Structure formats: C-alpha cells, structure tokens
C-alpha cells in the first residue's frame, strides 16, 4: 500500500490538537503558533491531495482500506471524489484563517488562576474539529462517517459553550446562560438527528450487509441488492433527517442562529462554513448515492422545504437586530440554495451546489470574520450600536462590503457562479421553483445592504469615533479570503474540473439525465 495520504491529512491536525493541548499554561503564544503551524501543514497536505487527484480518473481516489471491526464488516475505508476534494480543500484553507482571526479570542481572563488554560484548549479543539471534518469528507464507509459525524459535536459543543463572545466575556451572567443554552440546543438538535441516522445506518447494514459505499454500489449495480421501496424510503428519511438538521433546513434550523450568535466569530465560521457543510455533502454522497429512488421520491418535499428556507431565511435576516444572527439567517437561506441544487438533480444544479458549499464557506468566513473584528472593537453585536464606521475605519468597511457583496452573489465574486448554476439547474428541471428561488437574490441584496447601511454609513456615532481600522493580523485574514473570492469568481475552472466528474457519477447514481434544451431537442 502506498503512503496513506488521506490519513495523514486528517491525522496531522489531530496530532496538532494533542500537541497544542499539551503546551504549558504559561506558554500561550507558543500554543497559538503551534496550532497555526499544524493548520498550515494540513493546508499543504490538502494541496498535495488536490494536485494528486486526477479529475478523469476513478471515482474514489487515494483509497485506503483496513479492517476495523471485522464482525460487523466495518472498515476503515477512505477515498476522495471530486466533491470531497473540493470540501477538503475548503476546510484546510479556512482553518488557518479561523486560527488567526481567533488569535486573542481565548486569552484567559485575569480572574482565573494561572493553571487555567483556555487558549490551549481553544486551539486544540479547533484542530480537532478540522481533523474530524476532513476525515468525514474522505470516509467511504458509512459507519466510519457516522462516528465522525457524531464525534465532531463534542469539540463543537465546547467551542460554542466554552468560548463566548469577548464582547460579553467575564462577569455577564446572562450571556453565560444564553451561551450554554445555545450550546445545549446545538448538541441536542444534532444528537437527535444523529440518533435517527444511527437507526438508519443499522437498517442499512441489515438490508445491504455492508457499510462500504463501493460494495453497496457494486451490489446495486449487479442487481444483487434489491431494496424494497418502503425500506429504501425509511432509510433515506433517517439519513436525510440528520443531514437536514446539520445543514440546516427549515424548520430544523433554529439552533443555528443561537449557536452562531453566541459563539465567537471564528467558531461561528467553523459552524456554518465547515461543519454544516458535512450535512450538505452527506446529502449528496449518502442520500443520493445510497437511496437514489427514495431521493427522487422525496424531491418535491425537499425542494419545497429548500425554497421555504431560502425565502424564510432571507426574510428573517432582514428582521434581525443582531449582526451575527443576521448572518446566521442568511446562511440558512444559502443552505436552502445548496439543498435545492442537490435535489434538482441536474448537472448544473449539483455542480452549483458543490461550488456553493465551497464559495459559501469562503464568503461567509470573510463576512463573519470581519464582522467579528467589528464586534470586538465596539463590544456589541447589535446593529443599532453602530453607524458611520465607514468614515473612521474605511478598510474595515470596505472588506465588510466585499464580504457582503459576496453574500449577495455579486457577479465577479465566487458565490455568483455557484448560485447561478444552482438556479439554472433548478430552473431547467423545476421552472417554478427556479423562479421562486431567484427572488432570493433580491432579498439577499436587501439584508446585506440594510446591514451595511445601518452599520457603516450615516453620521459617525460617538461610540465608534475612536474605532481603529483593521490591523495587520486582521488584514492577513480578510485580504487573502477576498482574493480567493475574486479568483474563484473569475476563474472557477480548477474547481469545476474536479467537481464535474463527481457530479456525473452522482447523476448516474440517480439515473437522471439533464433535460434537453427545447431547440436542440427539436434538431
């Protein structure tokens, strides 16, 4: 067996987490640099994976397979397809920014004893999440995936509940209550989803006799696996429920605004840009891959829910008074687009959905991290506490605006490409749904511009008058993300190249063909 590249990519941050956690209490800064070093190392490995991946090659590449729990046929099976590669890259790319943006978020409060080591804990948890997410993107064994899917809740729980907004840190009892409420809500929602999925995982094993994606696919292909329609549907629902909670899809979304509102901005990025992507990713790989017939059966309902998510999330974003909650609802709207693209079951829709996952990750990270810098400066998350920031901190305002424009999918920035693909893909299969979803772009403009107008423009408020502009560390976070957004907006080919073959595989899984254009069909 050749060098286990995927294992190494997932193991490096895990090792980093242990190393960071082991740093003594006094050497805080060393822990930060160590975490950054490991995250950059992971990025390098991810880049190697990206380069080694051959778009025209096998469906799953760089595969590894070892026996794990032989009695139940559970194997440690890894492999990436194009979608996995794209999301792996996204995760590895974003984590260094999360770490740099959260550089001071976990500095210990002075009231605590000297043995208190929150900094080490914070960065170790972030790396732990990275390791699990990466592994879940490359796992091709359902059981292995399930374990990771659940296990990543643990570090996330501590990150949300343990490291609140610096704005309210310290003595504020109410904030602490809110935070633990948010963390518990996050955990309960996702656990509930996960448990239902566990039942479905077991059911799948009973039906298929294997946990391996490739084996199941093979059995399906040569006809040795016949699933009863109702069985397939129940199993699909079990899987889908978990992913819909994670994604999150209306009406299972209410944990997200709480969690994102209470967590620090970097952790919020971790939630919405990285961890939630596992949900949508899994819909593509497991729901569509394992239960194609049931997926088609559920399509009308899923599309309806996705449309509700799009419009509802956007409308609620307009009504928010809290910057981070606003971004959370915007994300719900965007997840609606992703799910819409997946279930439209056209090449454009699915390519678009995959690109959307990547682009939404980057654009939300940019917007949210800059918003985090803003919130740290003023110590408030309320939109009403700001005004005229543009005058005192033009660079901050500028980066914030670009992040916002990316969120509203301005052409030239990466999210436009994906959003348009999703819309076209949906429209060609379900025209009415496509038109309703298109209204989301107007609403997106509304909430982004309202946010920008209220915080950045107008007369300078007294409370922001002495606000400093972005510092070097913060620029190092914002500018590269913006550069990536522009690059992928103008030249998304490196991504589409790896994604396209994977989408073809998924399309053949569900045995769907793109609708033919009317004129061409006539010819």
């Amino acid at each position, binding site marked *: 067996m050749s060098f286990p590249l995927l294992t190494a990519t997932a193991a490096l941050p895990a090792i980093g987490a242990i190393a960071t956690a082991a740093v003594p209490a006094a050497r805080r800064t060393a822990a930060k640099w160590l975490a950054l070093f490991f995250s950059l190392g992971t990025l390098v490995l991810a880049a190697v994976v990206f380069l080694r991946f051959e778009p025209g090659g096998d469906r799953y590449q760089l595969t590894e397979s070892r026996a794990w729990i032989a009695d139940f046929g559970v194997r440690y099976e890894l492999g990436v397809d194009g979608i996995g590669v794209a999301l792996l890259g996204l995760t590895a790319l974003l984590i260094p920014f999360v770490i740099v943006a959260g550089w001071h978020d976990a500095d210990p409060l002075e009231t605590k004893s000297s043995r208190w080591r929150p900094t080490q804990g914070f960065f170790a948890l972030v790396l732990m999440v990275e390791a699990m997410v990466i592994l879940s993107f490359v796992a091709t064994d359902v059981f292995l995936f399930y374990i990771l899917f659940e296990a990543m809740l643990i570090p996330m729980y501590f990150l949300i509940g343990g490291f609140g907004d610096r704005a309210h840190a310290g003595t504020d009892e109410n904030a602490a209550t809110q935070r633990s409420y948010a963390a518990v809500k996050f955990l309960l929602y996702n656990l509930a989803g996960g448990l239902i999925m566990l039942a479905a995982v077991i059911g799948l094993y009973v039906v298929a006799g294997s946990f391996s994606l490739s084996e199941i696919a093979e059995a399906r292909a040569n006809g040795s696996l016949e699933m009863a329609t109702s069985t397939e549907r129940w199993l699909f629902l079990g899987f889908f429920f978990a992913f819909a909670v994670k994604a999150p899809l209306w009406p299972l979304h209410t944990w997200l605004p709480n969690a994102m509102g209470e967590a620090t901005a970097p952790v919020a990025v971790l939630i919405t840009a990285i961890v939630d992507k596992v949900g949508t990713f899994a819909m593509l790989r497991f729901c569509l891959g394992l239960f194609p017939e049931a997926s088609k059966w559920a399509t009308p309902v899923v599309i309806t829910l996705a449309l509700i998510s799009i419009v509802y999330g956007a409308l609620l974003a307009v009504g928010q008074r809290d910057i981070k909650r606003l971004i959370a609802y915007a994300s719900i709207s965007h997840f609606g687009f992703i799910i819409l693209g997946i279930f439209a079951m056209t090449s454009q829709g699915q390519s678009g959905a995959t690109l959307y996952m990547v682009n939404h990750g980057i654009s939300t990270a940019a917007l949210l991290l800059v918003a985090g810098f803003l919130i740290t400066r003023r110590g408030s998350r309320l939109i009403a506490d700001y005004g005229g920031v543009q005058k005192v901190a033009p660079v901050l305002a500028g980066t914030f605006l670009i992040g916002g424009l990316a969120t509203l999918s301005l052409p030239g920035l990466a999210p436009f490409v994906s959003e348009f693909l999703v819309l076209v893909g949906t429209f060609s299969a379900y025209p009415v749904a496509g038109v309703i979803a298109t209204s989301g772009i107007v609403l997106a403009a509304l909430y982004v511009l309202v946010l920008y107008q209220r915080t950045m423009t107008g007369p300078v408020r007294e409370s922001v008058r002495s606000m400093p502009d972005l510092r070097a560390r913060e620029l190092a976070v914002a500018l590269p993300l913006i550069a990536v957004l522009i690059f992928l907006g103008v030249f998304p*080919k490196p991504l589409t190249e790896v994604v396209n073959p994977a989408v073809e595989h998924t399309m053949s899984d569900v045995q769907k063909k793109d609708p033919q254009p009317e*004129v061409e069909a006539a010819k």
Partner: protein
Amino acid sequence: MENLIALLVAAPLLGAAVLLCGGRRLDKTGHWLGTVLAGASFVVGLILFTDMLGKDPENRALHQHLFSWIPVEGFQADIAFQLDQLSMTFVLLITGVGTLIHIYSIGYMEHDERRRRFFGYLNLFLAAMLILVIADNYLLLYVGWEGVGLASFLLIGFWQHKPTAATAAKKAFLVNRVGDMGLSIAIMLMFTTFGTFAFGPVLESAGETSQGKLTAIGLMLLLAACGKSAQVPLQSWLGDAMEGPTPVSALIHAATMVTAGVYLIVRSGAIFNAAPDAQLVVVIVGAVTLIFGAIVGCAKDDIKKALAGSTMSQIGYMILAAGLGPIGYIFAIMHLVTHGFFKAGLFLGAGSVMHGMNDEVDMRKYGGLRKYMPVTFVTFGLGYLAIIGFPGLSGFFSKDKIIEAAFAKGGAEGWILGSVALLGAAITAFYMTRVMLMTFFGEKRWQPDAEGHEPHPHESPKSMTVPMIVLAFGSVFAGGFFAIGDRFVNWLEPVTGYDHGHSPLSAATVTGATVVALVVGVGIAWAMYGRKPVPLVAPRGSVLTRAARRDLLQDDFNHVVLVRGGEHLTRSLVYVDHSLVDGVVNGTAASVGGLSGRLRRMQNGYARTYAVSMFGGTAVVIAATLLMRAV
C-alpha cells in the same frame, strides 16, 4: 486587432484596482491616473473604430475568446467579447463621455478628501459598462449589468455620511436587483430553450421555438431593462440617485448606464421581433414612462431631479422606439447617443451651477445666472435647445425620427404612440424651458444660507468648462451628422436590421407637428415662468402638480405596500420563528422535562423497588420470547 478588445476593459479595471487598493500614497496623483486610463480606453476604442470602418459592413464584428469561465456539463459560459457596430457605438459613447466626465470631476471633486476613491469607482464603472456592451453572451452581460449596479451603488452613496445618500444608494441597488432577477430568469429560460446563452446561437435560432417562450423571455428582458433604465414601474430609484455627485449623475444616471436597458432590448431584437406581445408591452412601458417622467420633470424644483425626470422621459422615447422593432431600433440608439451628449452636458451644467451656488439645488433660489456664468449658460442653453428638439440640433433629428417611426408602426397603435410621443415632445419643451428660465433668467433670488454665507456665483474652472464645451458641440452637431445621408442607419443596419415602415403621415407633416408641439410647450412655459417672477416658495399647485412633486405617488405606494408591508412581514416572521418553530421544539423539551420529573419519583432509592422492575422486565422479555415462538 481582436486582442485589443480586452484592453478596453483592462485599462479602467486596472485603474480601479490600483486606485482602490493603492492607499493614501495615490491621493495626490490618483485622479490623473484614473483619467489617463479612461482616456486610454477611449483611444483603444478609436483605434478599433478606425479599423472597423476599413472593413466591409457585413464583416465588421470582432470576437475575442479569453477563457472558459464556468465549464460545467451542458453549460458553457465563456469570458468572450464581441465587438460589432452596436457595441462600438456604445464603446465610443461610454469611453468618450466617460473621459470627459473624468476630466470634469478633477475640478468638481477637488476639495473632496476621498477624490482618489471617487476616481476608482468611476473607473470601475467604466470597466463594468464596457463589459456589459462588449460581452458576447448574456451571462457575461449580466456580470457587467450587476457591475454597473455596484458602481452606481457606490457612487450614489459616495457621500455616505449623508443618510439620504446611503438610503438612495441602497434603494437604487435593490430596485435594480428586481430588474436583475428578470435578467437572470431570462437567461435561465434561454438556457432551457436554446441550451446556450451566447448572443450568436440564441438570436439565430430565436424563431425556432414557441412564441410563448419567446414572449416570456422578452418580458423578463424588459423587466431587467425597466430596472436599469428606470422605466415604470421600477423608475423610483432614479430621482433619489441624484444624491450622488453631479458628474455621477451625468455619466451614469443620464448618459450611459441608464441606457443599458435600451441596449439590451436592441441587442435582443431577434427575440422581440418574434414575440409581438412582448413588443407591445415594451412600447406601452416606453410610452407610459415617457409621459410619467415628463410630468415629474415639470413639477420638480430641484434642478437635478427635474433633469432626472427628463432622463426617464427621454429613455421612455428610446424604449418606445426599441419596442417598435426594426423600424425603431436604430433610432433608439441614435437618440441614445445624442441624448448622451446633451443630457451629460445639461447635468454638467447643473453641476457647474451648483458648484457656483454653494451646492444649492433649488431652482427657486437661482435666477439670472446667465450674467455670472456665461460659459455654463451657453453650453447649458445649447443642450436645452437640443433636448427640446430645436430644428437643426441633435435632439431634433433623433426625436423626430422616433416620432416618425411611431406613426409608421401603423394602425391605431401607431396613431396612439405617435400622439403620445408628440405630447411628450410638448411637455419636454415645457419643463426644459421652465428649468432654463428659472435658472438663468429673471431676477436673482438667492439668499444667505443658515450660516449667513451668501453665495457668490462664479464661473467654474477650466477643467469643468472644457468638457461642457465639448459636449455642447456634440449636442449641436451629432444629430445632424448622424441623420444626414442616413449615416447612422447604414452603420447599424447590418446588426439590428432596418425596416423603413409605412408612415401614414409624410415626414414633413411629422416634422411640422413636432415643431408645433415644441412651440406650444415653450410658449406655455414662457407664459408661466418667464413673464412673471418666480415665487420663492412653491405654490400649492393642483392635485396633479402635488402628486408629480411626489413622483406621482409611486414612491408612497412603494413605501406603504413594500416597505411597511415588508417590515410587518419580517417582524411577524421573527415572532413566528421564535414562538412557533422554536416554540414547538422548546415545548417538546419542556414536556419531556415534565414527564421525567414525574418519572423521577419512581426512583425512590429502595433496592427492592428496582429489583421489582428488573424482575418484571425479565418476565416481560420472557413473555415476549414465548409469544414470538408461539406465533
């Protein structure tokens, strides 16, 4: 030669990037850099133009394929440019007027500390607008379409510290987004119908699909055009957009960007030609806006808003012409170009007036300015004569052709449209005369402002007057140059096609009617504003006047229905999310909590009780096993 096309866009794009990222080091030189790069783009345009003139009229189009943009199964979007006569016209207009306005802005924005950024935005606008007109497919056009929307947003809200400016910018972007939605649906429809959205294949095979589809595409394109070109019902943003600096109003909200809708319709002519229903809606929208804008223009006392109403109305003419089909396409573009000259000139003149009057915009506080600002007066006056269609000047030729074409549409439709266009001409003459009289004639009416500074009207610096003079030349001669010998028709015909139509009225009759309308309009205005002094405070006026001052209540409608309604909707949805969606979950949690509180009492701590439950449980399991065996 093809490779130069990208350079058109690259120059201003580079300028925008350098100016916006360059930081304070460029504060001193930034405006020169911006102007030079805009000029460079114009020069490139000229080179391409001369090259094009040397070619056979049928083979003048140039193509440049840069790279494949979004390659996805069954979906090919390219970054590729197409420069034909239609695009060329726009390129020259955009870069030419753009460069002039860059020069003008050097003087106008001299005292603004953020001038560098202003030039960055202007360059960004030029780049986006150029992409819009030289794109070879609808998706790339969409990029430019939204790009100019962004630039417009940034420039309207340039003085962000003013809440009105920030609100106006947001409004402009939002209303435009509604139009953009139309454009993106149109593109999606094209994709599902034709499998592509490149101009060539789509327009060639437009006739091969059902009329219903084409009508749908056409209506969606019209929606997009309405948003961008401020046509009813999406016109409300244009008046507010005057919050931006005046050069912006001249360049974006008069000469170039707002005419993009006309470009879109003319470019998609093949689709509209095959969808008469869509065409009918287009002419109706054009005709309604024509009158709507004109009425609004009559009532405004703010010089820029009056001009904005006029812009709306003039674009209404163009849309009307574009909706007429091959009879009108060329005249729509022709009017677009001449309008670009004289309206830009008018706006620059207005800017010059404001510059001299401490940024006062209320025309009732002007009066008699011709003595203080002679150059401005002359250039503005020439623009005025052009727009009202004074015989011999630009506007006369282009507008006359449109009215002719409207009659040539034939039937009752033709009569109605022609009459509306004539009526519009009369109202145009009225409100423009009003502007002219209130600003430059009569007694001086200005007063010290709140801080006691009395304005000292003075002529503007050279950097501002020179562009105005150049544009005045354009307003005087462009129309004649285009019209005489059908130069413009011959130039554009290979692209848009041309149909002479059969007018029920002779050309001379139409011209006569136009002149009569003009005289009537001017006469009424003279009677109302020239003979008696203009009151300093606006009279109450008739119902129509009051409604027109409020943009014919359309904004109020928007406010009540969309803004208030939207606020209520979002607020109630926030409540629903909190108490209903979340409430179900929290309620479940609470009931589980209550249930476990009850069940907790079973845990009394006695080992024997637990033993009973274990034993009972075992009994149940055995019973179940036996039953299963029995069954």
